[in-house]
């Protein structure tokens, strides 16, 4: 049973290359999770190989944009659009970009001001 949280913090600029390497090594993308922390966002990218989870974390300062990983993992478009709509993080070059129309909410980007 896995009880630890394999976390590795990387720079926002390293993200696309990391995703590409992981893809070549046969990792499967599990999920992307955004968390609001003071003055920044915490993006956790989880990958899986042989049923073991590996998390890569990007701390993205407020107002900065980040490049999409959809060129390595097409399936990431679901999460990236979601994060774009709910957190207001600008993710560029998404393969299937809904331009903020993925989730229509009562208030735009409800998570942005949660802290």
């Amino acid at each position: 049973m896995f009880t630890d949280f394999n976390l590795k913090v990387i720079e926002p600029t390293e993200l696309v290359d990391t995703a590409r390497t992981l893809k070549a090594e046969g990792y499967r993308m599990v999920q992307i999770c955004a968390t609001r922390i003071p003055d920044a966002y915490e993006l956790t990218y989880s990958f899986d190989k042989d049923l073991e989870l590996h998390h890569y974390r990007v701390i993205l300062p407020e107002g900065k944009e980040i490049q999409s990983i959809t060129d390595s993992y097409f399936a990431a478009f679901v999460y990236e659009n979601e994060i774009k709509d709910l957190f207001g993080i600008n993710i560029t070059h998404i393969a299937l970009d809904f331009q903020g129309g993925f989730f229509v909410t009562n208030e735009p980007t409800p998570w942005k001001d949660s802290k």
Partner: protein
Amino acid sequence: MAKQTIIPFGPQHPVLPEPIHLDLVLEDEKVVQAIPSIGFIHRGLEKLVEKKEYTELMYVTERICGICAFGHNWGYCHAIEILLNVEVPERAEYLRVMWHEMSRVHSHLLWLGLLADAFGFESLFMHCWRLREGILDLFEKTTGGRVIFSVNKIGGVHRDVSPEMLLEISTVIAGMKKEYDELAKVFIEDVSVKNRTVGVGKVSKEDAAALCAVGPTARGSGVPFDIRSTGHSIYGKLGFEPIVEEGGDCYARALVRVKEVYQSMEMIQKIIAEMPEGEISVNVKGKPEGEFMARVEQPRGESCYYVKGNGTKNLERMRVRTPTNINVPFLVSALAGCELADVPVIVLSIDPCISCTER
């Protein structure tokens, strides 16, 4: 090049009780591209962490989805138990897996019925749903609810199941298996089922793996990915082996589910036979701190529960990644190049659960 037409599918569509909207770009009768748009049942329940304590959040997590309610609740409890360093009693684990596998039987029967309905096999639909009621009755007798159970708690389960009840479950499941044999035969052999499913919505093993598909959807394409094979909880003791089909079409996905029902039924019998005596819950104290991601194999596939606590009774973040969420790209790829008339069957074949997806 033929003229392109865009046909909207959903949100209110007879084949699917749930609202999903697809823009189907057609050339004649062929679907060239499908663009999903969701958010019709987005509730934003992940944000409730700010308003509800981590113990109250239990009742929220099981209402993420009414079909796999037990699994959602279990996954969340498991994540919190890891953060709080709680060892769950063995009997509680056995009971949890028993209810979880019962959920799988009920969910797969429900899906098989809906599939039959999607290609117009009304009587098969009715028979699947009639059989499913047997499981719901067992749920009501053991937990008190038909679809939402409220039986889990952090550190164990609320209700114990008496030996007489276990015996009854065992007998009911054995009886159900006999009836299910006939239904399974129809799904596996019947010409009308095969006509509508064989070769429809084909996705190769490589594509399924690249699209990160999970659950029976991936296993139907030959990807042997199943969280239960990590042997977490008591699955290691049950000798679990994932069921894999190589076809990659709707028929293969149906076949995986047909066989998984048998597998779950066998597992339930095994659990009942091996059920240990003892406590069903431990007292839990403290406030969760740190972060963890728990994974549970739901009827629809792997789902993840990420929790981040900061030492207060309100969590900092709770995130749920549900199986349909990650199967949507798979669906988009399966729909490209199919006939318009096959769209409902393909959409159903990934077993979409939209309320999970949008939370």
